[in-house]
């Protein structure tokens, strides 16, 4: 029996959005009478934290703390159209729409504040704590609470805004395939280290070191959630998962979590995550879509590490103990 060790590397990029269908999302933003802000969307939160990120984007743009923002999604009676939560488009497309709507609302807010303070709106700034002040003279200020009250009950202004972000549809050119299927690209490089039991074909992923470039980590803790979970899913894809274990034979498909294999809490690789930020030109605060790309580089990195360990190439996913063992046996007889 021998436990053999190997490591492998992979580098990837990942596109944001689905331009080949036209890629729109809308957002509405309005203030309540006491200066809280509602973001209205029809975008779906799958657990990745869409609502929280939209709240932070709106708060940053308006100039209020995040806890002053409420996100109302996804109700088709109230929320304007969003293409959907897929293609790593949620943060990017909806975020841009929220920025546009929030900017419009902010402008009205500043205009009302200007009337109250008897200055020009262009001379005003927000302090991020819920106040509007004159640039260079912060003692001359008014709370957003009072501005909203004034807008509603005194000045008859609607502190609100509309946001629409559309990447126009790209039609692939028939003969050359010239097309613009997406906008900004995220990047990653992963190094995986494995142990392979050459008598059973069992693989243990010891470590994965993932470097992800995601444009901008809008909320670093939530980015970390996605990247750690995605890295786990990548390893899972590499070594465990399929609904058809004997593809293309249709038999023996798993029907529960016992038969559908994924790494358990006792199978976790020591996981390191390093994030780089090269802001994208068109992303909200430079963000790109990190949700999908983070689960991709582990797959080839693990495959290459298995080869490095035992000298057999498994070019069929998932890289099961059976496939490795068969290859090892073919290697010794061949």
């Amino acid at each position, binding site marked *: 029996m021998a436990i053999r060790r190997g490591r492998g590397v992979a580098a990837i990029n990942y596109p944001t959005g689905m331009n080949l269908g036209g890629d729109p999302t809308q957002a509405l933003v309005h203030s309540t009478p006491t200066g809280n802000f509602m973001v209205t969307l029809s975008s779906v939160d*799958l*657990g*990745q*934290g869409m609502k929280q990120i939209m709240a932070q984007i709106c708060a940053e743009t308006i100039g209020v703390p995040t806890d002053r923002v409420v996100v109302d999604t996804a109700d088709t009676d109230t929320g304007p159209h969003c293409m959907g939560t897929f293609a790593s488009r949620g943060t990017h497309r909806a975020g841009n729409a929220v920025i546009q709507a929030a900017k419009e609302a902010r402008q009205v807010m500043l205009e009302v504040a200007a009337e109250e303070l008897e200055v020009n709106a262009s001379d005003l700034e927000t302090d991020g704590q819920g106040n509007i002040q004159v640039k260079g003279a912060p003692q001359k200020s008014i709370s957003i609470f009072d501005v909203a009250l004034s807008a509603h009950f005194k000045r008859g202004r609607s502190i609100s805004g509309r946001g629409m972000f559309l990447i126009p549809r790209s039609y692939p050119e028939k003969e050359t395939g010239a097309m613009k299927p997406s906008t900004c690209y995220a990047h990653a490089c992963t190094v995986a280290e494995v142990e392979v039991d050459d008598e059973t074909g069992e693989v243990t992923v010891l470590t994965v070191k993932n470097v992800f470039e995601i444009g901008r980590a809008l909320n670093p*803790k*939530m980015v*970390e*959630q*996605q990247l*750690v*979970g*995605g*890295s*786990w*899913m990548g390893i899972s894809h590499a070594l465990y998962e399929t609904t058809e274990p004997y593809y293309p034979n249709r038999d023996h498909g798993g029907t*529960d*979590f*016992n038969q559908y294999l*994924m790494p*358990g*809490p*006792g199978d*976790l690789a020591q*996981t390191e995550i390093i994030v780089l930020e090269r802001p994208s030109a068109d992303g909200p605060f430079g963000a790109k879509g990190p949700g999908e790309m983070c689960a991709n580089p582990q797959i080839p990195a693990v495959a290459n590490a298995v080869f490095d360990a035992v000298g057999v190439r498994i070019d069929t996913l998932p890289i099961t103990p059976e496939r490795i063992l068969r290859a090892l046996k073919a290697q010794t007889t061949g």
Partner: protein
Amino acid sequence: MAKVPVQFTLNGAEKAEFIESGTTLLNALRDKIGDTSPKGGCHQGTCGACSVIIDGELRLSCLTLAETCNGADIKTTAGLAEGGVLHPLQRAFLDAFATQCGFCTPGMIMAAKVLLDRTPNPSREDVVEALSGNICRCTGYEPIIQAVLVAARANSQNAA
């Protein structure tokens, strides 16, 4: 269809209902009693999202018939916070960013609570074993393991 009475304590409150014979505890809690904190992720006993504590033991409410729980003391995640104050496990899950979609969270917390009730200072291995019947598809488990370990430390510091 024959209805049968069930009576048990849920998070300290007496509950009595007439249910159809053969109803699982999961469905009785969710549909009759209105405690939707246990989730139905598989109804097979393979995901742990429906985990509840019955008479101090972790059980899968999807495989437990409600009629067999007469007189039992049942606890769910919905009853964990006391007086609006989160349980240390709940607090730790928040602080460790250990929830994403949240669907597995109530079951995870129940599994972790049983562990900490019996083993106040668990090792990482203990935590892994305690969570081994609960599936999470979002987090990769590590943040959840960390949250349970943090809660255990918080608990033991409070006790000391």
